[in-house]
């Protein structure tokens, strides 16, 4: 068993390694990219991968590697910000619902039920459609998709904590609600929240890619990995590299977050035995 656990933490390390590469590549995109991502070069339309263009070029002769690197900044920034929105809403409401119970819990959990009555991607599509496609609506849509699951998880943890002796003791010595929540409740929901955040970021990357793939996400001239696939699909049989490389980037990032999340769950949450 000990060996199994060490191996799974090896998975967490592998995930972290992938993510470091992805994040560094996105941060250093202007330095690493062989060409500016928007530089047109119509004479080099739909070139296969060559040393000059390691991932080939698109219809307008733009360098695909440069676009994947820069697109990563967009995809990662959107997913990260959306997850922060989800985290803020989910943890705050989950802690309040779990700790206070009663009508607070009722109101929060019924709202969660309504959000969960729509499948994730459908909800995101509806919100993106209502707000009109573009970066801000993707952010709102993905933030709103992410919070209900997190809220339910945190609420469950807090409800179990509320009855524990150390919380009762803090109450007995006259600590206020704010103090108890801040010093005793929040630190104890950090572990499950970290796990859920890592897995959540994987989902956010995938959902952003899906929305942009459907043409409901970021709009030109902004490009994310998903929108690159959306526009690359038109040239699929002549230039499959337009789909392969952004698709690969999505897969590496999602795999990184999922490996990290699964590994962390194994390390931080000994109750879950796989």
């Amino acid at each position, binding site marked *: 068993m000990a060996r199994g656990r060490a191996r799974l933490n090896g998975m967490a390390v592998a995930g972290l390694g992938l993510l470091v590469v992805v994040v560094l590549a996105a941060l250093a995109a202007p330095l690493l990219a062989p060409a500016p991502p928007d530089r047109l070069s119509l004479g080099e339309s739909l070139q296969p991968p060559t040393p000059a263009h390691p991932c080939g070029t698109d219809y307008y002769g733009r360098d695909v590697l440069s676009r994947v690197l820069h697109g990563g900044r967009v995809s990662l920034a959107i997913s990260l910000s959306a997850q922060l929105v989800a985290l803020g809403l989910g943890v705050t409401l989950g802690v309040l619902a779990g700790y206070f119970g009663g009508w607070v819990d009722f109101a929060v959990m019924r709202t969660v039920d309504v959000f969960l009555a729509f499948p994730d991607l459908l909800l995101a599509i*509806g919100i993106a459609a*209502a707000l009109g496609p573009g970066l801000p609506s993707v952010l709102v849509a993905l933030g709103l998709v992410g919070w209900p699951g997190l809220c339910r998880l945190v609420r469950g943890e807090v409800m179990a904590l509320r009855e524990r002796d150390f919380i009762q003791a803090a109450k007995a010595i006259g600590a206020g609600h704010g103090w108890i929540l801040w010093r005793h409740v929040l630190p104890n929901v950090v572990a499950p929240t970290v796990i859920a955040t890592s897995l959540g970021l994987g989902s956010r990357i995938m959902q952003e890619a899906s929305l942009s793939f459907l043409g409901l996400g970021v709009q030109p001239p902004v490009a994310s990995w998903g929108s690159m696939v959306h526009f690359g699909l038109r040239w699929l049989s002549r230039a499959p590299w337009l789909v392969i490389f952004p698709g690969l980037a999505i897969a590496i990032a999602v795999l990184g977050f*999922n490996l990290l999340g699964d590994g962390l769950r194994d390390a931080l949450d000994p109750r879950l035995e796989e």
Partner: protein
Amino acid sequence: MTAFVARRLLAAVPVLLAVSLATFALLYLVPGDPVKTLVGERASPETIANIRRDLGLDLPVVQRYLTWLGRTLRGDLGRSWTTGRPVAASLAVRFPVTLRLALVAFAVSVTVGLGVGVFSATRHNSAADHGVRFLLLLTGAVPVFVMATAAMYVFGVRLHWLPVSGLGDGSLRHFILPGAVLGLYLSIYQARMTRSVMLEVIRQDYIRTARAKGLPERVVIWRHAFRNALVTVITLLGGSLSNLLVGSVLTETIFNLPGVGRFTVDAAYARDFPVVMGCFLFQAVVFVSANVLVDIGYALADPRVRVG
């Protein structure tokens, strides 16, 4: 049992009401004037006023909601802003497509998911187990639309084994490729769940007893362990079935199948709000009712659930 069913059905009513409210509120998220979005900024004020009256947009919000809800309950989901066709009629044409895709995908996912799950669990912590689990993780990280594109390219464009996309004459052939891709993704979750449920069951005393009395391992696994694991696995399958019925938006879009998911995306793209709202409501209702049915089915299979 009757009490349980009644309780579960009643619990769904407020959720569905709230869902209808959320769907209705969608229209209010639209920045600016939806009518101007519809007819363009340059339309004359009279035209805009006429359309507003036709759509009932000049009435107070509460009255509009109640009118809309009343019509919706009678099965009238309004007409598309782009084609003028009744939304409910379009849904009736498109739902069978989604249903057929769902059935093919479900068959694929159950075969692959349960098979792989049992395979993995019976080789717990072996190289084969780790290999399979890593493969599942890897597949899950590839976006479904990239996998679908690859499948279309290989089996459709290169090998000519199956139609590339579209509904064609609606025969099964056109559903094999999309169904297989969608089923593969569903099976990832099913395989993971089957594996952990099987591991749980294999640790039980009655499995040790079965082995001790000299039964062949195949009988122990399939007759004793798997059948007991199945109770839990069935609820999870129910969950994937309801997800499927909603129509995989991405699969239908990429394979150009005119199902409910594709309808939703096209409407969202055209910002055809009666269709978006109709699709939204329809899919949420299917999703919620399927979940209720699954709960009831589960209670029938396992009496312990009925308490509490």
